[in-house]
């Protein structure tokens, strides 16, 4: 349905006269609608062409603009957050999957004076639907941000074309997400957990490394408020990933920045990882609960209820610890100091600091790939968990390097190599997750045993679950050999050699 911006001096009579060749206008009474735009922190709806709004006008409605599909609206009792809180039906089906584990958050708002109406033919039949909106963007404190604009929705292309001929009328987007978000300091698509750093291949290594570390520091800072507010589990997750990536950059790209600077930063990043560890582990268990329930027979699934409530209590404690850490002077001193240290153009004294970053990147990627091969090729048929864990860490390091330096290599090649690596990582991650979760189940059984609400049924269900996880782990271990053989195969070796060799020659 086209939407047009009309000049403020276009009155009802002129509008009706302009529409005369199409039909008679019939307009309903004006009403006030408060619209709040909802999306995840990382714009998961916007990224797939969807715009979700909550409209308050008497009741609450959720309205979805979904690419070219007809606009959709449904009543809702409360503003939805995570996918499970969406009203059942089309909205839950359509956007539930897009949300994943993320929560909807308000990202902008408008106040609309709205009149719905129609254009009728001589017989009173519907020719076109109309919606006249006087829209004022509202800032995050609820005050107006800028002048009101008047827009017309009209689902009749000829009528829209006639309106367009009036001076000052122009076709505009079907929503005000961009301007509404701007008043809240956001731009659609402005955050992604993926690294998006554009490096110049000839740039000195010290400048490039600082740019990467600054980007990661921004990710840590951007996620702090959400991690404290606890909108969803991904704020802490993204914050932790940015910490790990930073540490990986510091330890893998040595000889560039001065150790007096990097060593204390590394220690603080390690502290952040450690202090958020229990929370993340508990989040993973809670996110896995539905799958746990499906792994045991239905009668045993109900027996897992005390496990879930115990996990939730532990999680609340773990979150309080994270909040204390993120509000501490230690954290603010670290972020401020680290930012100040990275915001310099002075050449770093390291022996590799002035090398073109592309050379350094090629060296490090090459070295990381070889390290995985070295460790993997000496494994026997039944490798110990520690050896697989080592390869998992090696693979993660290579993954981070490919992400840091993606802009220096052909995009397609990097994507393909990440794909090769991802298959291996998924299996190694599976082996590790099952190991960690089984260990945690044993600990949980120990913790829960004395609780009066925990019966034999619960402990038995935990036992069955541990068995199911072990079977899964065996499955992953079985898949590892084939996945590693693929990763170490000639074509993949050759592709990695090509990726790093080409760049070193340039």
């Amino acid at each position, binding site marked *: 349905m086209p939407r047009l911006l009309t000049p403020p001096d276009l009155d009802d009579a002129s509008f009706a006269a302009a529409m005369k060749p199409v039909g008679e206008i019939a307009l309903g009474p004006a009403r006030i609608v408060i619209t709040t735009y909802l999306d995840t922190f990382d714009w998961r709806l916007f990224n797939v062409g969807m715009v979700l709004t909550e409209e308050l006008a008497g009741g609450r409605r959720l*309205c979805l603009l979904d690419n070219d599909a*007809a*606009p*959709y*609206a*449904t*009543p809702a009792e409360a503003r939805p957050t995570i996918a499970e809180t969406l*009203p059942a*039906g*089309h*909205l839950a089906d359509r956007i539930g999957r897009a949300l994943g584990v993320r929560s909807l958050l308000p990202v902008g708002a408008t106040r609309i004076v709205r009149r*719905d109406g*129609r254009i*009728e*033919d001589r*017989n*009173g*039949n*519907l020719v076109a*639907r109309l919606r006249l909106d006087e829209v004022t963007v509202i800032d995050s404190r609820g005050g107006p941000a800028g002048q009101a604009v008047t827009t017309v929705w009209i*689902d009749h292309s000829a009528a829209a074309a006639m309106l367009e001929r009036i001076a000052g009328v122009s076709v505009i987007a079907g929503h005000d997400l961009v301007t509404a978000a701007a008043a809240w300091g956001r731009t659609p698509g402005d955050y992604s957990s993926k690294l998006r750093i554009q490096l110049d291949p000839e740039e000195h290594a010290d400048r490039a490394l600082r740019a990467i570390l600054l980007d990661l520091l921004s990710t840590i800072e951007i996620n702090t408020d959400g991690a404290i507010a606890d909108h969803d589990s991904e704020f802490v997750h993204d914050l932790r990933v940015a910490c790990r990536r930073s540490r990986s950059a510091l330890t893998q790209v040595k000889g560039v920045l001065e150790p007096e600077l990097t060593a204390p930063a590394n220690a603080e990043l390690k502290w952040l990882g450690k202090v958020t560890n229990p929370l993340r582990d508990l989040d993973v268990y809670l996110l896995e609960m539905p799958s746990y329930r499906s792994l045991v027979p239905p009668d045993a699934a109900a027996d897992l209820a005390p496990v879930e409530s115990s996990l939730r209590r532990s999680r609340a404690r773990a979150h309080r610890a994270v909040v204390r850490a993120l509000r501490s002077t230690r954290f603010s001193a670290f972020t401020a100091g680290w930012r100040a240290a990275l915001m310099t153009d002075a050449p770093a004294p390291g022996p590799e600091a002035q090398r073109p970053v592309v050379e350094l990147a090629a060296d490090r990627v090459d070295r990381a790939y070889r390290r995985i091969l070295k460790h993997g090729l000496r494994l026997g048929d039944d490798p110990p968990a520690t050896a697989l864990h080592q390869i998992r860490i090696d693979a993660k390091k290579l993954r981070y390097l490919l992400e840091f330096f993606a802009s220096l290599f052909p995009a397609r090649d990097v994507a393909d190599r990440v794909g090769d690596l991802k298959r291996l990582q998924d299996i190694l991650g599976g082996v590790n997750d099952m190991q960690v979760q089984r260990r945690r189940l044993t600990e949980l059984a120990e913790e829960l045993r004395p609780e009066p609400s925990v019966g034999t049924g619960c402990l038995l269900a935990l036992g069955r679950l541990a068995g199911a996880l072990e079977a899964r782990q065996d499955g992953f271990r079985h898949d590892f050999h084939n996945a590693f053989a693929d990763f170490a195969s000639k074509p993949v070796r050759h592709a990695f050699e090509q990726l790093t060799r080409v760049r070193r020659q340039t």
Partner: protein
Amino acid sequence: MKSLAVWTVKGGVGKTTAAVNLAHAAAGDGLRTVLWDLDPQGAASFYLRIPPQLDEAVDAVTRRSVDLAELARPTEFDNLAMLPADFAFRHLDLALDAAGKPRKRFAAKLKDLGRRFDLAILDCPPSVSLVSEAVVKTVDAVLVPVIPSTLSMRTLHQVRTFVAEHGRGAAVLPFLSMVDRRKRMHLELARACLADPGFLTVAVPSASVVEKMGLTRAPVAATLPSQPAARAFAALWREIRDRVGV
């Protein structure tokens, strides 16, 4: 997608007003709803201001190559689209018979609609025909408006027998329509009907706002949402939703 037919073999019992108001209530409830006007009189189309004319109307029902969902027209109301009637539908029986396998064809058409809608409400002509046979064989439930009168209740018996003979598991959900609380016979017969567990418990009253739909050309809830008739249709919709499991 769930499909509901509003059908009875007696005319003038509030069939079309029920179809329009229930479709409006379902759409307001967040279901992507299509109201399919199969009655050549085109009253449902008239109420929703959609001109009763469908391009290649009969072909749209009989030919597999035509995607019926493409022909649905938006109404003034969110989530509510309409397949308007066409006067050519008076020959739909003959056309379906000539095309062969009427039930399969009908089922294929509802499948088309299912790609874009969550609910289809079919306003069927008040007659026993090949169309009604195909409809009762295909839909999830048949909603039967019943005026508390002897004739209307006799008709319900006929509908139940017909659906039992031809239906394939469609539920028959009768409901009281046009109930005039001032008439003792209405009240007595209504009580008798509600003792039948098959009946929906919400009764639609006889009301001038429903009669005025011909003037307002809109569902009652769109013009006078607080009127008892509007509230009755909303409650009736909720009861149908829960019974059918939409």
